[in-house]
């Protein structure tokens, strides 16, 4: 795609853009702030590490929606069903390769996970393409209709999951070596969370490169504001939108796999259950910002853990609290990209 190569040259003495570091400092600051309240350092480490990892998982589920909702401005309530679908897609792999999950080999277990991810991304990607074409395409630009249509798509897809895999929850095994935790003194670290951190970081870096080193991000934002003009500049905006939607769906599928193994039980509604959280994270991050979504996810998860430990009564509203505070500080979110 020649459309999307980066720009390198600009006349030398043009003003430079500045990076905003403040929100990044928020995470360590918060963690340090929590330390004296938590007291016991080992508990603090356990909580912090678990929170970071949970943040990564939330990020994985939200990353696709940052593209679709944040950048493309499509309110896709159906995102949740892609998460579920990705989760159920693991069954396609776990069925024939059940042995790999039981095997006491890190290599085999991770290979299984990778395979699940690839299959799930393929499945959700394809379904995403259909979803875009049939359901979303005709309602670009109208938020309300998007809400309704994607809600309809969500219901249909959930029912389809019921029809295919049945309505009962389905337990799935976490591969043998990923179960349990590392114990260092009083500190425990679930193994699976370490995997989640690795996957989360990989996706984050890949997305950052993709959006910052190419024009894709710019094109999407421009295309949302004035699709006619983008076409008049010679870009095939519809094709780009499909690709991005497919990418968003595939990322949701990936998030779904990670979430499925975390939950170890599949239900058709599992994706929908996290949607409010996902929307919150995207808003906190600032619409369209992958970095913001990443920081936001971690922030929400960390706060949830600290609050859950220190004042469980408040845990109910900790997400909303974080959102309110961030929006008071920065009404556009941490790193707003698209000003809408």
């Amino acid at each position, binding site marked *: 795609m020649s459309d999307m190569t980066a720009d390198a040259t600009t006349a030398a003495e043009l003003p430079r853009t500045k990076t905003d570091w403040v929100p990044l400092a928020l995470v360590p600051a918060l963690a340090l702030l929590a330390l004296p309240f938590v007291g016991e350092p080992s508990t603090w480490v356990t909580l912090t590490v678990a929170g970071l990892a949970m943040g990564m998982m939330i990020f994985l589920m939200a990353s696709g929606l940052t593209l679709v909702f944040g950048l493309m401005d499509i309110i896709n309530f159906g995102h949740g069903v892609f998460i579920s679908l990705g989760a159920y897609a693991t069954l396609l792999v776990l069925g024939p390769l059940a042995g790999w999950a039981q095997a006491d080999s890190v290599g085999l277990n991770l290979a299984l996970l990778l395979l699940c991810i690839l299959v799930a991304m393929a499945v959700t990607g394809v379904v995403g393409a259909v979803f875009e074409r049939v359901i979303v395409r005709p309602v670009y630009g109208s938020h309300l209709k998007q809400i309704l249509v994607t809600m309809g798509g969500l219901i249909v897809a959930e029912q389809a999951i019921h029809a295919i895999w049945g309505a009962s929850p389905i337990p799935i095994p976490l591969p043998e070596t990923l179960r349990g935790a590392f114990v260092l003194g009083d500190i425990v670290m679930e193994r699976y969370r370490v995997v989640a951190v690795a996957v989360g970081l990989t996706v984050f870096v890949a997305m950052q490169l993709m959006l910052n080193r190419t024009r894709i991000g710019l094109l999407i934002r421009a295309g949302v504001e004035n699709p006619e003009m983008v076409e008049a500049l010679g870009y095939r905006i519809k094709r780009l939108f499909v690709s991005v939607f497919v990418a968003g769906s595939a990322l949701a599928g990936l998030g779904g796999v990670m979430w499925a193994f975390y*939950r170890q039980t599949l239900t058709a509604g599992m994706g929908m259950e996290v949607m409010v959280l996902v929307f919150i994270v995207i808003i906190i991050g600032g619409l369209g910002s992958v970095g913001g979504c990443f920081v936001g996810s971690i922030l929400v998860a960390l706060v949830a853990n600290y609050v859950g430990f220190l004042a469980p009564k408040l*845990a109910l509203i900790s997400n909303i609290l974080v959102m309110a505070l961030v929006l008071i500080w920065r009404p556009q979110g941490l790193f707003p990209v698209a000003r809408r």
Partner: protein
Amino acid sequence: QDIKIALIAGKTGPLEAYAKQTEAGFMMGLEYLTKGSMALNGRKISVIVKDDQLKADLAKTLLEQAYNDDKVDLAVGTTSSAAALAMLPVAEENGKVLIVEPAVADAITGEKWNRFIFRTARNSTQDAYGAAAAIPASGDVSIATLAQDYAFGRDGVAALKSALSQIRPNAKVVFEEYTPQNATDFTASAQRIFDALKDKPGKKIINIIWAGQHPLPKIADLKPERFGIEIAPGGNILPAMQIYKNYPGMEGAVYYYYAFPKNPMNDWLVAEHQKRYNSPPDFFTAGGFAAASAAVTAIQKAGGTDPEKLITAMEGMTFETPKGPMTFRKEDHQALQVMYHFKVKADGKDANDLLDLVDTIPADKMPIPVRNKR
């Protein structure tokens, strides 16, 4: 003239699976008890199934319709406790019997009860007594509870505490942890529970009272055994209990598990269910079956479907179920029944071979209080 029975269940929505079991169990029960004829005293039985979508208002409207428009003789339902509670006044207004199955809320046979209400399902207090009975009767036992932060969770903990004080005075609830209803990360809760339990003497147990997605693996993965803490996860439907498999040796109490009861009715149910649905019967299948049995037994005993006669017949009535005999207590019409103390198997043969029976807890070992202020 047909005997008309309405079966109301939350057939669509998140608890679809539960409702399916109830319906299957109910129909199989009628089949078994009428020896396949689906007729009683020469009258054909027709069942009208209605879906309340777990909505209380709809359940109420549907029950009104069943009594008024469909002219059913009695009704059975429903999946959600909220919906069942909303249905209670309708039975009273229409002067017809309602058998509650499988809703568990105590209030159904407690303060919101009226004399047209009978319940085959167990209530929350029975669950709590079961759980209490599965705890050793001697030695120091320290218990921490983990429950969801809403009425169901808090009532469950309160019920457990009072059950313990009745039948296990040696055990104390030393810590109560409540999480948001939709919580997914349990690290913080686990830490708090560990901190509370780890220095206690004697046996240390985390008792989980949960509706929906079970937090067991999350707690277990944090290795409570480091502190000598055990987990009592409580009984559940089979798919939910499959995750127990990875943690053999856990103990708790369960309402029904297909391999536990030994009686012809259950044998038939297990064999027939395996044949028809390629899986053993579950929690709510047994419940549906029991409701069918209650209805059939009552009609036979009353010699018809006149509501007043039915009530007279049912008060104190004992009837056979896959769990063995149950008895409607005269005071509050709650069916008293056994519970099972189980232990998770180390090496089951297949996905549903999960539990070993430790003990059957007879109904008279569980002195369930009467709460309906009759």
